[in-house]
């Protein structure tokens, strides 16, 4: 290959590379532009004024009454009632025992006199 032929071949490869780079850059720009257009937020508009109410039978799922507080409340009521009742028995029994001790002392005092 002569010097002239080699220079022609180098020039062709360089031109191909330039065109390829330009096409790639154009594709990237087109893709980015498309992405920006599709993800851009729509211009916000206030919701239209409500002109009437529409009745439905069921409450929407995200607004339904949660079950967990009701279950916890029911458990709490049961245990509080049982504990308070046991405490009341214990208190009443302690009062009776104190009274019995006092009356027994009185009886024993009377016997000694």
């Amino acid at each position, binding site marked *: 290959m002569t010097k002239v032929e080699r220079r022609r071949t180098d020039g062709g490869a360089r031109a191909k590379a330039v065109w390829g780079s330009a096409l790639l850059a154009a594709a990237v720009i087109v893709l980015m532009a498309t992405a920006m257009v599709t993800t851009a937020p729509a211009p916000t508009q206030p919701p239209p004024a409500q002109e009437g109410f529409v009745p439905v039978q069921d409450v929407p799922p995200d607004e339904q*009454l949660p*079950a*967990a507080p*009701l*279950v916890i*409340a*029911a*458990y709490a*009521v*049961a245990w509080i*009632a*049982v504990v308070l*009742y*046991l405490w009341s*028995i214990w208190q*009443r*029994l302690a009062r*009776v*025992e104190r*009274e*019995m001790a006092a*009356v*027994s002392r*009185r*009886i024993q005092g*009377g016997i000694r006199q």
Partner: protein
Amino acid sequence: MNRLFPVLALLVAVMLAYAPVMIAGAPYESTMGLVQKIFYFHVPAAMAMFVSAFVCGIASAVYLFGRRPAADRIAVSAAELTALFGVIVLISGPLWARKAWGVWWQWDARLTSTLVLWLIFQAYLLLRRYGGPGSDRLAAGVALFGMANVPFVYWSVNVWRTLHPTTSVLPTLQPGMRGPLWFSVAAFIGLYVLMLGARTRLEQRRAELEELYLAAEE
């Protein structure tokens, strides 16, 4: 009873501590979801209430016809426990109903008859407290009416149309729900026996105190 009491107390405490674990592991009901878990202590409390009403009625009958003071002590203790378990039933039920039916209360046969049963035992306790001399026998008659009301409460869901589930729910329970329920029932009945023992002991000591006062006056 004195020897058995600590053993039974320990057993019941362990059962009551483990019952929530079993209830949490039970499957959810398809239409009610999480709130149906109230079932596992609403029903045992109702069963304890019914058992207590029967104990009170039978003890009252023994007192009325046999004049045994020990029976009267058991009757008054059981009446108080009927009222206590009635409170648990009448509060846990509406909490369940609010989610399942959308209302706290419905004046249907089961709910109304349960309320009437509870009111009869409140009347018994009020008579015992404020009725004066002879009120123990009058209250024993009221307890018989209370006991007679229990079968009506139980069968009401099968006879009248109500929102409340029928009695066929319990025999047809799936195994995953059956185990936790009957475990809770056993724990609640154990708790009931313990509390009845403790409350009867209080009545016994009160009777002994009365004897002591009489001895002191002499």
